[in-house]
């Protein structure tokens, strides 16, 4: 079995300028803060990010936006990030808003080798205006195209050296989907263990989709619960 362990700097150095990068997490839950910090440290430019949301002020990908590394963001909800809403409104940053389950399923499609799926969600409202409508056997559907990316950066609670992952509670959210959908997947884990240390029946997502496994070495405040 391939040993995929490496330090975070080496893993992030694989990402070039202009790459598309999926980022796990729903708000802070499951966001890979160390991989994001290293992207800021290395300064890759013109990134296209795919994440559920834009995090909050001073947290996660908000910092990537502030350091002007983000060209485009695909997200489902940016309401907790006023700066990103302003940038989207003024057109300074290209933000594409997608319904949450549609985004999840489009990513899932990319990860399971399916070109897209047919959907009736939003067919009779404004949402359908910019979408491809197809007619099959007399029924109309929206064609929702698979959404992949060059890279995925995801957080696991535990990963073995092959990339078999376990997640912390609701931190699972988009991580297994993104890990499967991207061409190259980077994992940061709170704990990196040896092969055999995770029982096969306890694996939440298989390491088959993972390329790099890094131990988190610096736990920033972002990993903690935030008072609000």
């Amino acid at each position, binding site marked *: 079995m391939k040993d995929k362990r490496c330090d975070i700097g080496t893993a992030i150095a694989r990402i070039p300028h202009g790459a598309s990068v999926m980022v796990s997490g*729903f*708000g*802070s*839950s*499951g966001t890979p803060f160390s991989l994001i910090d290293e992207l800021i440290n290395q300064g890759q430019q013109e990134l296209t990010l795919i994440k*559920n*949301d834009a995090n909050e002020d001073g947290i996660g990908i908000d910092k990537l936006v502030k350091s002007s590394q983000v060209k485009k963001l695909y*997200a*489902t*909800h*940016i*309401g*907790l990030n*006023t700066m990103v*809403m*302003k940038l*989207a*409104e003024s057109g300074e940053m290209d933000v594409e*808003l*997608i*319904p*949450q*389950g*549609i*985004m*999840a*399923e489009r*990513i*899932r499609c990319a990860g399971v080798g399916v070109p897209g799926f047919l959907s*009736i*969600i*939003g067919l*009779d*409202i*404004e*949402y359908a205006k910019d979408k491809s409508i197809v007619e099959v056997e007399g029924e109309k559907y929206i064609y929702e195209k698979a959404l992949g990316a060059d890279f995925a950066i995801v957080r696991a609670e535990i990963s073995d050296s092959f990339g078999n992952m376990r*997640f*912390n*509670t*609701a*931190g*699972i*959210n*988009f*991580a*297994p*989907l993104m890990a499967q959908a991207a061409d190259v997947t980077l994992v940061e884990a709170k704990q990196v263990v040896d092969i055999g240390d995770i029982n096969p029946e306890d694996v939440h997502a298989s390491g088959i989709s993972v390329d790099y496994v890094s131990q988190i070495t610096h736990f920033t405040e972002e*990993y*903690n*619960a*935030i*008072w*609000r």
Partner: protein
Amino acid sequence: MLSGDNTRILERAACEVNNEMVINLGIGLPQLIPNFISEDSRPLIHSENGILGVGNLLPFDKSNPDCMDAGGGYVGMVPGGSFVDSAESFGFVRRGKIDISFLGAFQVSSTGDLANWHFPGARKPGMGGGLEIASCAKKIIILMKQTDKAGNSKILPECTFPLTAKNCVKIIITEKAVFKVSENDLELIEMAMGQSIDKIKKATGDTFSVAKNLKEF
């Protein structure tokens, strides 16, 4: 502190659930419903980020930082709960496994169209999971004030704001009244204590029928 109006809405909303249901709660007022549900009618609460069996809100210093609900609150779990990924969570939604979703609204039409994701003129936050939940939950119950801050009815013949879903609302609960909604009829089924049909008519932007066995709540 909850206003008397909101308390009345929440108490009435809690009457809609039983302990065999799976329910989903929109952000804001609907999230407070669990405080009004008696122990023996507790439904299983779904949160679209991937939780089935949401428990109590926890103070941040006693929480698991990753165990958040879709509203960003740190939550505990009830026995029998489970975590799933986002695709599976919305699979439950689209497959019709959510018995009731309680949502807020900017506007509801008398035929059950719902506008609750973008307030025109305000910045666009994104629709989150709203489109799918509104389209696919078995029953959509709206909790809202009868009128907006300017006193205009939020129940209208047609919504003027961008729609979340068409013909999806089944029940509207306001501080004044409970309406049953269908594609061809808006029916007043209950009115709050101290209200009259005339008072409710003045605060409703469309005509409605009155149930034969009109109740008070």
